[in-house]
């Protein structure tokens, strides 16, 4: 079902990054973020290098910069938070353009901003180059409990169905002249949510029965086991290793 249910972040392609096995990409992205997070915040140049590394990956994956930047917008709440930080943090203060700002707050803001942005960029790149189904296979390959992977896969598969159901309910409400304007209308919306839950749950029961009638006994057969060659692993892990070198330099310099 993965083919028909490509998520919004995915960009179809055949770049070297796209064809890497999913679990190597997952491991690489996670390791990269861990390395980034453990870099000292004073080493500003290191973060520039990380950004450069991600830029290289994006180039290799043929993900356009505009796409990547647009997806980074999800971070905006925390940018706002980071902007506030120098004003509320403690410690010695410094005057910038006549405004008194906390030094540690400035560092904190930079820290959250840099690491958060790099983390989001890494996730976006991962999602942009990996299909849903592959992601789930990769998670399973990385020893996430099979039951958890199954739940996630059902959530992904039926997420669109349930969202569509919700959309149809909204259209039905609106076509009957309902418009939610305030707290007084919560009852109606909550009834919709309740109905949505019942429909989802009953759909789950039907899905289960359909699966049982096809021989389901608690686990899904894995028919396409993903494997990675040594070359693919080293290709994927080149990113976190390069980052690690930068990180170590950041600690020593």
């Amino acid at each position, binding site marked *: 079902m993965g083919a028909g249910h490509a*998520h919004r972040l995915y960009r179809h392609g055949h770049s070297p990054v796209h064809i890497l096995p999913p679990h190597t990409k997952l491991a690489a*992205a*996670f390791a990269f973020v861990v390395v*980034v*997070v*453990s870099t000292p915040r004073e080493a500003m140049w290191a973060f520039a290098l990380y950004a450069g590394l991600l830029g290289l990956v994006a180039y290799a994956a043929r993900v356009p910069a505009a796409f990547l930047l647009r*997806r980074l917008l*999800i971070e*905006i*709440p*925390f940018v*706002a*938070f980071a902007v*506030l930080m120098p004003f*509320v*943090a*403690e*410690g010695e203060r410094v005057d910038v353009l006549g405004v008194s700002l906390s030094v*540690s707050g400035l560092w*904190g*803001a930079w*820290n*959250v901003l840099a*690491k*958060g942005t*790099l*983390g*989001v960029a890494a*996730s976006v790149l*991962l*999602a942009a180059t990996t299909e849903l189904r592959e*992601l789930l296979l990769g998670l399973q390959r990385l020893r996430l*409990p099979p*039951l*958890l992977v*199954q*739940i*996630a896969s*059902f*959530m*992904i598969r*039926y997420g669109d169905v*349930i*969202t569509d159901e*919700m959309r149809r309910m909204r259209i039905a409400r609106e076509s009957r002249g309902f418009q939610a304007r*305030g*707290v007084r209308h*919560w009852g109606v*919306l*909550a*009834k*919709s*949510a*309740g109905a949505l*839950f*019942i429909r*989802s*749950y009953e759909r*789950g029961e039907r899905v289960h029965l359909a*699966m049982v009638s096809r021989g389901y006994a608690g686990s899904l057969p894995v028919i396409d086991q993903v494997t990675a060659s040594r070359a693919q692993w080293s290709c994927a892990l080149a990113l976190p290793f390069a980052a690690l070198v930068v990180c170590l330099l950041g600690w020593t310099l």
Partner: protein
Amino acid sequence: MHVPDGFINAPTSAATGVLAAGALAVSLKGARRELDERTAPLAGLVAAFIFAVQMLNFPVAAGTSGHLLGGALAAILVGPFTGILCVSVVLLMQGILFADGGLTALGVNITDMAIVTTVVAYAVFRGLVKALPRTRRSVTVASFLAALVSVPAAAVVFTLIYAIGGTTDVAIGKVATAMIGVHVLIGIGEATITALTVGAVIAVRPDLVHGARGLTRRLKLRVGGELVDAPAATPEPVAARSRRGLWITGLVASLVLAGVVSFYASSSPDGLEKVAADQGIDKKTERHANADSPLAGYSVKDIRDSRLSGGLAGVIGVGATVVAGSAVFWAVRRRRAGEPVEAG
């Protein structure tokens, strides 16, 4: 509260990650007990429901709107274990697919938003359902209060995590005041929506509501003009609740005493009202996009009192005890019960 990377330092993230993994392992077993081999499709569909319902906008006033967080709702509708699983899976997918919440912060996010809200909500809910008369209305009331407590509880835990591993030195009092103040208000919205939704489900399919299982009446048969109880087809699955009820009630009582009562006892009512007034408007505006981001509260003035920390410490203490105690309890019981018989 979708925490990004770099917001909480690496050791704390790792520790919460371990905690989250442990809780997930327990929930996986528990969910299998709640749903047996139906777990995967049902929990998956409920996760999809939670995911969808988080997109349902509840208008507050003048163009602002909020949405459900869903932890309490999941706990009450499908039980605590399945609830934890569903919300965690939603968070996991949001982190990987939508870059919403950092990968290294997954542990923090799951601990805070999936585990704490669900466990607290369910504990409060169970305690209240035990205490209140066995009617549908009391289930609704209990779900209101459970959701009401669960959101500030998550804020308290977030503050605690921040106190241990925050990467900036914003005074912890400020964080606590802002987070808890804002989340009490968010909690009211969450509680209203949760109670209404649970009420709507109970009205149609009471058998689906995990939290209302005690309400099912015995089937009556009219035999020779008299009503007699029909013989039970299957033994009532009460084993899990019978003993647990007592200590859950005790825990809820201690939580309420430690946190809420001492909070009210020590903080001046003026301060509380001022938080409400200050936050009342702007908090709701921010609720939609970043309902639970800590930033929402950072605009709050420094309305704090030193004794707030007393209540906070109480809740944290009880919470920590609950978590540790339950972990041991479950571990021991799992070990001892070779064959889990009850479908709690």
